[in-house]
């Protein structure tokens, strides 16, 4: 009996050892086979995604994930497909799973940022974009961070958030890619961020390298325009149009510049007659603008000013008094413009030559 007890004990221990080996072998076989199956399903999902069949792609990737639940690459692709299919809440759940295990996952943060941006959650979107910029990326970290930053920059530009946009552009400026396209984009964005001086530096650098680059000349024109240097702007726009005569946008800018310069009564070197003529023109344009805007039940104050403007336009002024009258006309035009701003529901356009001249007068 004693031998049986010890023998059985030994046999049980041996069985445990043998079963352990068998189990580990079987587990490895299963791991290999299920991994292959997961890879196949995932590849099918990716192919379907490329074909734009996002719903089927999601199913395949989910099947792959059911086999390899912790595969972050699969989870990231699933979230990407869900965003593409417009299933934002599903994507958020998938991304939350990713962020639960690694809150610094750059890709997950970027997608979260995109979803928040789509849903109009500005603060959340900016926060996630920032987390994506400073987060962890599996590969091409620097490129991906740059990509995330440019997405944020585009988003801020879209929302005209100038200060935040400039704050994002400044770090990019030094390390930005040196290719022409990126430099042009940087210049445009700096313009949008309200930093025409920096934008002009960027465009000037491009013109130095490529004197025949129309976009850079146009950019320089816009930078000068933004700094109210309309003569410089006109010169750059003309140069841009000389290189690319069919650029409609630059042509429009040039027209505005030319009209401004033709209308500006403060331009240095104007003789009193010309200044008087321009003041009359300004008064006429301003009155027309007010008339167009306030058509019915004009308040007495408006009526009085319009009458005054009409009298000024028909009045015969002697040459000696034209300087004094020009000042009065300009003052009247400015009053009418202020009145228009106050009384009209529709905001006054800020980029017309008239608005620009009156803005300068206001300064």
């Amino acid at each position, binding site marked *: *009996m*004693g031998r*049986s*007890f*010890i023998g*059985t*004990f030994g*046999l*049980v*221990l041996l*069985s*445990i050892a043998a*079963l*352990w080996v*068998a*189990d*580990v072998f*079987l*587990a490895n*076989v*299963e791991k290999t*086979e*299920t991994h292959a*199956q997961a890879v*196949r399903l995932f590849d099918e999902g990716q192919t379907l995604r490329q074909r734009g069949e996002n719903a089927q792609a999601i199913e395949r990737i*989910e099947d792959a994930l*059911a086999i390899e*639940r912790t595969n972050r690459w699969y989870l990231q692709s699933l979230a990407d497909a869900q965003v593409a299919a417009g299933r934002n809440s599903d994507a958020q*759940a998938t991304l939350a799973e990713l962020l639960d295990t690694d809150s610094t996952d750059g890709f997950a943060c970027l997608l979260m940022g995109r979803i928040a941006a789509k849903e109009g959650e500005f603060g959340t979107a900016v926060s996630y974009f920032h987390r994506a910029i400073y987060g962890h990326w599996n590969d091409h970290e620097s490129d991906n961070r740059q990509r995330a930053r440019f997405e944020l920059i585009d988003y801020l530009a879209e929302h005209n958030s100038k200060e935040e946009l400039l704050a994002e552009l400044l770090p990019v400026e030094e390390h930005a890619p040196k290719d022409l396209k990126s430099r042009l984009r940087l210049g445009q964005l700096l313009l949008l961020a309200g930093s025409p001086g920096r934008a002009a530096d960027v465009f000037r650098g491009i013109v130095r390298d490529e004197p025949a680059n129309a976009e850079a000349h146009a950019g320089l024109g816009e930078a000068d325009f933004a700094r109210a240097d309309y003569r410089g702007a006109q010169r750059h726009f003309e140069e841009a149009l000389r290189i690319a005569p069919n650029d409609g946008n630059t042509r429009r800018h040039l027209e505005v510049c030319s009209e401004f310069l033709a209308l500006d009564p403060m331009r240095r070197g104007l003789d009193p007659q010309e200044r008087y003529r321009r003041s009359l023109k300004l008064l006429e344009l301003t009155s027309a603008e007010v008339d167009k805007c306030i058509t019915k039940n004009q308040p007495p104050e408006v009526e009085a000013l319009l009458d005054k403007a009409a009298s000024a336009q028909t009045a015969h002024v002697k040459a000696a008094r034209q300087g004094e009258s020009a000042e009065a006309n300009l003052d009247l035009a400015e009053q009418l413009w202020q009145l228009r701003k106050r009384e009209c529901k529709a905001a006054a356009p800020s980029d017309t030559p008239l608005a620009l001249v009156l803005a300068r007068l206001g300064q």
Partner: protein
Amino acid sequence: MIAKLRHSLERLRANEDQLALVLSVLIGALVGLVVVAFILLTGRLAAHMYPAGGAGWRRILVPVLGSLATGYLLWKYFPFARGSGIPQTKAAIVISDGRITMRTVLGKFFCCSASLATGIALGREGPSVHVGAGLASVVARNLGLTPKQVKALVPAGCSAALAAAFNTPIAAVLFSLEEILGDMHATVLGSVVISAATSWMVLHLVLGDEPLFHVSGYQLVHPGEFGVYAVLGVVGGLGSVCFVKLLLNLRIWFARLPKKTVWLQPVAGGLTVGLLGFFVPEVLGVGYDYVEKVLNGNIVVQLVVLFAVLKIIATAVCYASGNAGGIFGPSLFIGAMIGAAVGGVAHSLFPAYTAGPGAYALVGMGTAFAGIVRTPLTSVIMIFEITRDYTIIVPLMISNLIAFFISQKLQPEPIYEALEHQDGIHLPTAQSRAQAAKVQVQHAMRAAPALLLGEDMAHVHPDQSLSLALERMGEFGLNVIPVVSRANAHQLIGIVTLEDALHAYGVSK
């Protein structure tokens, strides 16, 4: 060295408590490894039977051939390996001192692997319990332990098996006590816990730490949801009763068929599941993959209702026709589908006040388990362990209890008891055991004749249970046992004869 080891083992053998402890660990490890092998083998076989993109005809042919082959093997070589194994395990503990043969263990392991891999709509957990119990029995008997020690180790094998099969160690312990032993205060609690823990550790070492289902965190959205969960309890309870009644009636129908068809009967299950699976592949096998999808809320209400109905039919026919496999897994599938259907309807009616259908599928699993297997406590803990989601536990308890009471009302006899009765086995119920425990030695004792008590003579005290007196008589091969005072072991108070004891239980010889 060997002599020293031999000496240590001999010493271990002499100390009953230490031996029980060591054997619990060994049985836990052994059973855990066998169950892991069972899971892996079944999974791999199934993957080869149904390769990705395989033709539709496979879904008919494979289960038919599988059930034909296993049906023959079960009939010819392993007659005790049919069905789930839970009733057989209970019967072995109560009737035959925990004796389960190695042949049954092997038959259960291989026939079940083949059945489940071919898509038979049964589960692996019940058979695992039978295999675990069988291994514990084989090891204990081969070590030359007493019948009492063998009986004490069998529940340890059960809990080890369930802990590994479901990855639910606490539920495994509870199930062994609640269902297998029918006694929550059983003295074998220590070995049951140790073996479950050991087996669970083995599972984690080999397969890693993954719950059976991955579920998003669900919680109660609005207090009004308790009403919907109560409705789920009612629907789940009714669904459970339908399933149990269908299975039992089909089993009676199959039992009435000529004896010579027994080997062929499992094919009825294979053919049913094959035909259903040809059109609806989700019916094949245990269907845990689909359960996980449903738990995560990916459902169409009409489809989950269809799946629940088809699974009830497929599982009932497969089991009743004599295939090897259990009903735990199918219970979870059916429950998840019923829950998802109720949740889907509720969510479409009251989207702001109810959670998604996934939450209801989760509670539905516990509900069907409580309604079918009738172990409400185990089912709550099991769902918690399977999903590791604690937040939904209160609705789960409410729903489970409602399903349990409805099932008890409409189908008074629990499924495992009914299956035993169909096989002509009448085991003591939990109620009858509690009643029997109340009968004490003094109720059956008669006056003592002049008798000299030896130091080591078997005896009982008057306030001890009569069942203990019977156990001691059986252990020492006596027809009569002396009753001695607790104050003085040499003071003979009376005697109990076997006839007296049976008479006290209302059984006349």
